[in-house]
C-alpha cells in the first residue's frame, strides 16, 4: 500500500522519540493501550495488564453502589494511578453533554487527571461514534483544559477536524467495538494516518494478534483494545500475544515492507547455475 507524506514524517519522528509513543507531551514505551472491562475478576484484570506491558489503561465511570458490601474491592486498588496512566472513558454516553459531565466527574475522581478518552456513541446496536456530538464534546473539553484522546469514525476529514480542535490523539475504529472483526478498511486508516499529525491509534475491532500487527504495519502509532484480550480463552496469554504483535507490527512499519507485486515473481535463490534439466526418457 502506498504511503503518503505524513508517513515519512512519522518515520523521522520515530527517530527523535527513540521509538516511543508520545501523547500530550508524555512518553510511553508501550504502544498497546488496554481496557479493564469484561474480566473474570480484578486479579485477572491485573495479570492481563501486566502481560500486555500497557502503560495507559482505560476505565469507565459509573454510579457507585450504595448500601452494598462496604468492603467491596475497588478497581483502582488493582490498577493504581501511581503506576499506570489511567484513561477514563465516556462509554455509554450518547450526547456531548453527558460525555463532558462524565469526564468532569472523572477528573474530580482522579485528583485533577486530565488525559481522557472521549467517545460519544450513536446507537447501542453498533456503538458507532456520533461524530457531530463527538466534535461538539471535543470542543468543550479542550476549552475546559482536558487532553482528549478521541474515539472516532475512520473518516479522514473528521479525524483532521478533531486534531484541529486540539485533540491530542485520534482513535478511529477498525471495526465495531467488541466485534473482533479486525481491520475492515485499511485504506481509510491509511488516509487518516497520512492526514493527521497527532498520534493515530486504532480503537475497537481488533480480534487477534494479526489484527494488531496489521494496524501497526499501516503506520498507526498504537492500538487500544479490551475485548480481544478479555474475551480470549486465556486472556493473560492473549495479552502477551498482543504485546508482541504490536511490537512486531511497529518494527515492520519502521523496516518498510517490500512492495506487493502481482505477476512479477522474483526468486530468492540464484536463477543461474542450476543443474542440467532432465532429458525426456525414451518410451
Amino acid at each position: 500500500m502506498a504511503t503518503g507524506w505524513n508517513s515519512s514524517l512519522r518515520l523521522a519522528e520515530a527517530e527523535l522519540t527513540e521509538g516511543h509513543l508520545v501523547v500530550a507531551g508524555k512518553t510511553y514505551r508501550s504502544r498497546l493501550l488496554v481496557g479493564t472491562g469484561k474480566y473474570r475478576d480484578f486479579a485477572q484484570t491485573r495479570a492481563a495488564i501486566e502481560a500486555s506491558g500497557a502503560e495507559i489503561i482505560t476505565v469507565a465511570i459509573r454510579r457507585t453502589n450504595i448500601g452494598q458490601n462496604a468492603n467491596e474491592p475497588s478497581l483502582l486498588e488493582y490498577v493504581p494511578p501511581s503506576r499506570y496512566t489511567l484513561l477514563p472513558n465516556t462509554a455509554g454516553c450518547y450526547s456531548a453533554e453527558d460525555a463532558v459531565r462524565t469526564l468532569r466527574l472523572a477528573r474530580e475522581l482522579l485528583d485533577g487527571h486530565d488525559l481522557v478518552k472521549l467517545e460519544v456513541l450513536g446507537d447501542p446496536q453498533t456503538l458507532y461514534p456520533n461524530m457531530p456530538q463527538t466534535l461538539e464534546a471535543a470542543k468543550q473539553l479542550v476549552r475546559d483544559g482536558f487532553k482528549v484522546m478521541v474515539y472516532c469514525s475512520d473518516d479522514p476529514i473528521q479525524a483532521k477536524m478533531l486534531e484541529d480542535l486540539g485533540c491530542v490523539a485520534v482513535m478511529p475504529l477498525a471495526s465495531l467495538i467488541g466485534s473482533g472483526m479486525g481491520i475492515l478498511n485499511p485504506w481509510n486508516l491509511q488516509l487518516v494516518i497520512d492526514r493527521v499529525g497527532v498520534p493515530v491509534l486504532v480503537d475497537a475491532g481488533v480480534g487477534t494478534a494479526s489484527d494488531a500487527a496489521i494496524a501497526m504495519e499501516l503506520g498507526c502509532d498504537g492500538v487500544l483494545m479490551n475485548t480481544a484480550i478479555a474475551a480470549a480463552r486465556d486472556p493473560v496469554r492473549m495479552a502477551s500475544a498482543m504485546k508482541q504483535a504490536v511490537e512486531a507490527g511497529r518494527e515492520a512499519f519502521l523496516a518498510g515492507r517490500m512492495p506487493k507485486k502481482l505477476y512479477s515473481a522474483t526468486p530468492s535463490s540464484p536463477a543461474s547455475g542450476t543443474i542440467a534439466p532432465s532429458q525426456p526418457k525414451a518410451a
Partner: protein
Amino acid sequence: MIRITVNGSARAFEQPLDIGALLATLELTGKKVAVERNGEIVPKSAHGTTLVLDGDRLELVVAVGGG
C-alpha cells in the same frame, strides 16, 4: 424534610445536610467517589461546606472496568 435523588433513587432526610454528612450516611466516607450536584462538580475540598437542598439531584461515581 428534604427530598433528593441520589444515583437515580429518591431519598429523604429530616434536615438539610452537607455532602460530607451525606456520604457518611451512605457509608461512603473515605471511598474514592466523585460528586456531581445538579449537573455541577462538587470538589472534595467543598464537601464539608456544600449543603444538599430539597430537590437536589446527586450523582456519586467511581471508576469501574471498561474499555
